[in-house]
């Protein structure tokens, strides 16, 4: 095979990977439903009157594990992190941001439009994928990555705080319940992170990792755009 033919074959394979990733994202979107709390869980949330630590822990973890927008962002964040120290640093930054706005927003009764928040979350995935593609290096700017992760943590938490407030939660045991929910989100994040790291770790041992990294992040960016478009349309069309 000539070099040219080899390159073309490689290009085709990259394209297949890209399409597969997009299909996987689309399927995940359809099955899981962005970021919402399922109707049965919602009814449960409205029925509780008093502290319910374990159920709220469970719902927080479930929210994180089944929230594909969170998962996509997490994939983007740790895509090029190899050292445990770095992974812990970035994930902690995200957690601090997330916890601050979730607790502050839900307890202080601050909320924003859920569609707008979700659109920003979609764009945060775009941002992270663009950075992973070497986009900022190419255009010669280097935003502070740590600050960005912290800010996106704040946005993600605020989105969740907004959604929690749509359910008329009883004031009785509210603080305990929101703290429990937040703790559950962290448990879920830990579980999701383990799964993502295992998958990435396996992929990293394959020779194709670096070659496909660019395409994989392009797919991630596409998913981010799709999510942002979906949410923005909701913002403009929902009265």
């Amino acid at each position, binding site marked *: 095979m000539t070099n040219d033919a080899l390159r073309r074959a490689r290009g085709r394979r990259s394209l297949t990977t890209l399409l597969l990733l997009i299909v996987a994202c689309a399927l995940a979107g359809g099955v899981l439903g962005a970021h919402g709390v399922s109707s049965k869980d919602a009814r449960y949330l409205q029925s509780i009157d008093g502290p319910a630590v374990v159920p709220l822990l469970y719902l927080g973890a479930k929210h994180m594990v089944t929230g594909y927008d969170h998962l996509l962002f997490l994939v983007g964040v740790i895509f090029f992190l190899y*050292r445990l120290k770095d992974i812990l640093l970035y994930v902690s930054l995200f957690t601090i941001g997330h916890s601050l706005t979730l607790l502050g927003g839900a307890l202080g009764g601050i909320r924003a439009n859920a569609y707008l928040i979700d659109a920003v979350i979609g764009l945060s995935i775009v941002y992270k994928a663009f950075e992973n593609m070497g*986009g900022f290096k190419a255009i010669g700017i280097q935003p502070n990555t740590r600050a960005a992760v912290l800010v996106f943590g704040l946005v993600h938490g605020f989105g969740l705080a907004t959604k929690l407030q749509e359910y008329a939660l009883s004031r009785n045991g509210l603080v305990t319940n929101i703290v429990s929910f937040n703790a559950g989100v962290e448990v879920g994040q830990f579980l999701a992170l383990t799964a993502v790291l295992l998958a990435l770790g396996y992929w990293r041992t394959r020779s194709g990792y670096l070659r496909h990294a660019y395409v994989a992040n392009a797919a991630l960016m596409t998913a981010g755009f799709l999510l942002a*478009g979906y949410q923005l349309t909701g913002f403009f069309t929902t009265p």
Partner: protein
Amino acid sequence: MTHSPVPPPAAAPPSLATLAKTTAVSVLVAALLLVTTVLPAEYGIDPLGTGRALGLTDIASPPVAPAAEPPKGAALVPVQNGPLGVYPAAFTFDTYQVALGPYEYVEYKYRLEKDATLLYSWSASAPVLHDMHGERAEVTDGVPPEQSFDKQNRREASGSHGSLVAPFAGIHGWYWENPGGETIIIRLTSAGYYTSAVEIRSDRSRRTRELRSLDALPLFAPPAGPGGQP
């Protein structure tokens, strides 16, 4: 986690042309998927007609199936047809009035099939303890036979207006208790797809009232014939 391979040398950043091309393709693919599949399926927005062709718009607004006619004389179970619940017979209208002596209680409950609707209004001459609840017609192991519908059951109130969609087949209604020394009058008006009610008093007497559907009640005068002739 600690077994991650050593980081490889950082890849050279892509050229600006590559980057622009990738971003453009990414936006295009996202826009294409959005317009052809996601918007039709989520919001019923279908500018290219692809959603209709692929059957995706049905997800945004599920089609209403042709109404299945419930058989005459069947139990009062609604056949759900989109937002409509269709019943085999007319609803029943009922009024109930009771005087509760000091510290007496009464339960008054309607027999409803699962998903059948009840509309009600009740008022009391003074605050009473109340609990709206249901009691299952069939008791199965592991399922509590009774379920309270009110988050704060047994609180004091002097009236309530509402509607109920029965979560299971059984008797659904109220427990009312006079918390004080004066006699209290309770008046209930309801309409719904039930055929009987049960009244249980403080002395443990249990009385079943058969109720007639509106079909059997003379509500209207005979209509005037053509030209005003009766």
